[in-house]
C-alpha cells in the first residue's frame, strides 16, 4: 500500500515537472506559433546549470560551486534563456521550420557537450550528489517526496497563474494577434519579431526551470536523461492535451506520462527480458502513433482553444 502511495507521489512529481515544460512549450507553440524541436536541449541546459551551481566542489571538476538552491534555480533559468535568445536571434525572422531545425540542433549539440566536456559535466558519468532542497529535514524518502510534491504544486500553480495573467495582458493579446493575423504581424514589423523572441525566450526559461526542478528532485544528472525522445513526449503532451490551452497542456502531461508509465510497466511484465529493447521500441511507437493519430483525427487535442476562422484559405 505504502509502495503504491509513494509511487504515486513520485509519479505526480514527474508529471508536474513535465507540466512546467509543457506550459513553456504551450507559450511558444500554442500562443505564439513557434516550433521548438529542441525542448530537451533547454531542459538539459537548466538541469546542468543547476547541478553545476549547487553541487559541492570536487577537485576534478571546474564547476560545482556549492551555491544555494534558489541561486541554482535562477542560474538554470538564466542559462536556458540565454541559449534561447541566441537561437531566436538567428532564426525567429526566418520561415517557421528553420526555428525547428535550429532548436533540434541545439538539443543534439547540448547532449554532445554534456557527454564530452568531462571537466564541467562529468561526461557520461554525470554529476551525482546534487543537493536536494531541505532534504536533511526529512527522515524518509517519502517525506522528502511529499514535501517536494507540495513545492512543485506551488511552483506549477505560480507558473500557471503568471502565464494566464500575462496572456490576458496587452502583451499576451499582441502575441495572439501576431499569430492569428499576418497583416497585424507585418504591420508590427520588427516589433512583431521581438514579441516572438520574447515569448520564445520565456518559454525556454520555463523548460530550464523544469530541468533544475528535475535534478534537484532526483539528485543526479547524466546525459542519458536528455534523449531526443523527451522532446517528442512533451510535444505529444501538448498536442494531445490541446495546444493554446494551459489546462490542456497540464492534462496532456498527465495523460501521456500516464500512458508512457503504464505501457512501460505492462511491457516489462509481458516481454521477456531478452527482448527489452524491442519492448522499449513498442513503447515509443505507441507514443508516435498516438501523436500522428491525434493530428489526423483530433487536431484540437483533448481540450483545445476556442476555434478561430482560418485566414490561410488560399494555401
Amino acid at each position, binding site marked *: 500500500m505504502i509502495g503504491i502511495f509513494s509511487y504515486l507521489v513520485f509519479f505526480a512529481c514527474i508529471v508536474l515537472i513535465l507540466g512546467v515544460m509543457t506550459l513553456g512549450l504551450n507559450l511558444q507553440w500554442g500562443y505564439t506559433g513557434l516550433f521548438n524541436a529542441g525542448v530537451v536541449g533547454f531542459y538539459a541546459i537548466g538541469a546542468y546549470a543547476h547541478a553545476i551551481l549547487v553541487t559541492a566542489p570536487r577537485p576534478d571538476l571546474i564547476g560545482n560551486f556549492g551555491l544555494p538552491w534558489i541561486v541554482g534555480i535562477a542560474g538554470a533559468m538564466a542559462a536556458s534563456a540565454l541559449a534561447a535568445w541566441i537561437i531566436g536571434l538567428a532564426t525567429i525572422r526566418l520561415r517557421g521550420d528553420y526555428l525547428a531545425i*535550429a532548436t*533540434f540542433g541545439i538539443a543534439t549539440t547540448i547532449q554532445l557537450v554534456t557527454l*564530452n566536456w568531462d571537466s564541467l559535466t562529468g561526461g557520461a558519468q554525470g554529476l551525482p550528489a546534487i543537493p536536494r532542497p531541505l532534504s536533511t529535514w526529512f527522515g524518509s524518502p517519502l517525506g522528502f517526496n511529499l514535501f517536494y510534491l507540495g513545492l512543485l504544486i506551488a511552483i506549477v500553480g505560480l507558473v500557471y497563474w503568471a502565464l494566464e495573467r500575462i496572456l490576458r495582458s496587452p502583451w499576451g493579446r499582441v502575441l495572439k494577434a501576431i499569430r492569428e493575423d499576418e497583416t497585424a504581424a507585418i504591420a508590427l514589423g520588427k516589433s512583431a519579431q521581438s514579441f516572438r523572441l520574447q515569448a520564445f525566450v520565456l518559454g525556454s526559461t520555463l523548460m530550464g526551470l523544469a530541468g533544475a526542478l528535475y535534478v534537484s528532485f532526483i539528485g543526479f544528472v547524466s546525459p542519458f536523461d536528455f534523449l531526443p525522445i523527451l522532446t517528442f513526449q512533451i510535444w505529444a503532451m501538448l*498536442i494531445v492535451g490541446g495546444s493554446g490551452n494551459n489546462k490542456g497542456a497540464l492534462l496532456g502531461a498527465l495523460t501521456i506520462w500516464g500512458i508512457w508509465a503504464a505501457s512501460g510497466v505492462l511491457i516489462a511484465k509481458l516481454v521477456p527480458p531478452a527482448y527489452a529493447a524491442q519492448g522499449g521500441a513498442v513503447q515509443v511507437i505507441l507514443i508516435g*502513433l498516438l501523436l500522428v493519430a491525434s493530428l489526423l483525427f483530433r487536431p484540437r487535442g483533448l481540450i483545445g482553444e476556442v476555434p478561430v476562422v*482560418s485566414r490561410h484559405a488560399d*494555401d
Partner: protein
Amino acid sequence: MLAQSLADGILTGAIIALGAIGVSFGLQILKFANFAHSELLTWGAYLALVFVAFAGPGTPTAELSFGWQMMAAMLLAALLTGGLAWLVDLLIFRRLRRMGSHPMSLVFAAFGAALVMRHVVVLIWGHGTHFYTRELQIAIEVLPGVRMLPDQIFILGLAIVIVVALHLYLTYSRTGMAMRAMAESPSLARACGIEVENVIRWTWILSGGLAAMAGVFLGLTPQLHPEMGFSLLLALFAASILGGTGSLAGAVIGGLLVGLAENLSVFLIGSGYKTAMPFLVLLLVLFFRPQGLFGEKS
C-alpha cells in the same frame, strides 16, 4: 594527415549530399522540414540488408568487398524506399494537406513518423549493428598521403553518377521542370495544368530513392545501426540550408562543405564534437546568409 581528412570529408560529404537533396526537395517542393527524411536513409540501408541476407553480398568483384548482388540490393532498396516514402505520404502527409492543416502540423507529423519508423527498425532488426559483408579490404593509396578503400572509391563514383543523372532529369525532363515550377509557386503550377499531387508523388519517390542510396553507402562504411540516419539528420538540414534552397547544386555543395567541416573540425575541436559541426555551420548560415550560398534573397 590533412589530405586524408579532406578525402574523408569529401566521402562523408557525398553521402550527406545525397540525403540533403531529399531534404531540399522537402523544403522547396513539399514546403516543410521533413524530420522523417533521415529514417528513409536507415530504411534504405536495412531493406538492402534484407536482400543481402537472402542473396548474400556476392563474391567480391574487382577490389570491392561485394559483388553484383549488393548492387542489385541497392537498386531494390532505392525502389522500395521510394515506395515507402510515398506510402508515408499517403497515410499521413496527404491527409494533412487535404485537411488544410497548419504547415507546421506536417513538421510534427514528420516527427511522429520518424519516431515510429526508427523504432520499427529496432523492433525488427534489434539495437545492435549489422554488416553487409565481413570481407576485409585493403586501402589503396590514391594520392600521396591519401588512402581510400575500394568500396569508398566506388561510393564516391556512384554518388557522382547519381547526381549528374538527377541534374539531367531535373533540367530536361518535363516532370523535372514541373518539380522546379512547383518549388517556386504551387498555385501557378496548378494554373499551368500541373497535377500537384503527381509532382508530390514523384518528389517522394525520388527523395526516398536517393535517401536509400545514401543509407546503403553509410551501411557500407562500415555498418548499419538503427540510429544511422537519425545521427545524420542535422548534417542533412545544415547541408540543404547552407547550399540554399534554389538548386540541386546547392544541396550537393552544401553536403560536401558540411562533410569537410565535420572531418576538418577534428583538428580544431577534437573528435568528440565532430557531430556538433553541422549545427555550428547551420547557426552561422542562418545568422549571416539565411538564403544559403546559392539561394536568392526573397
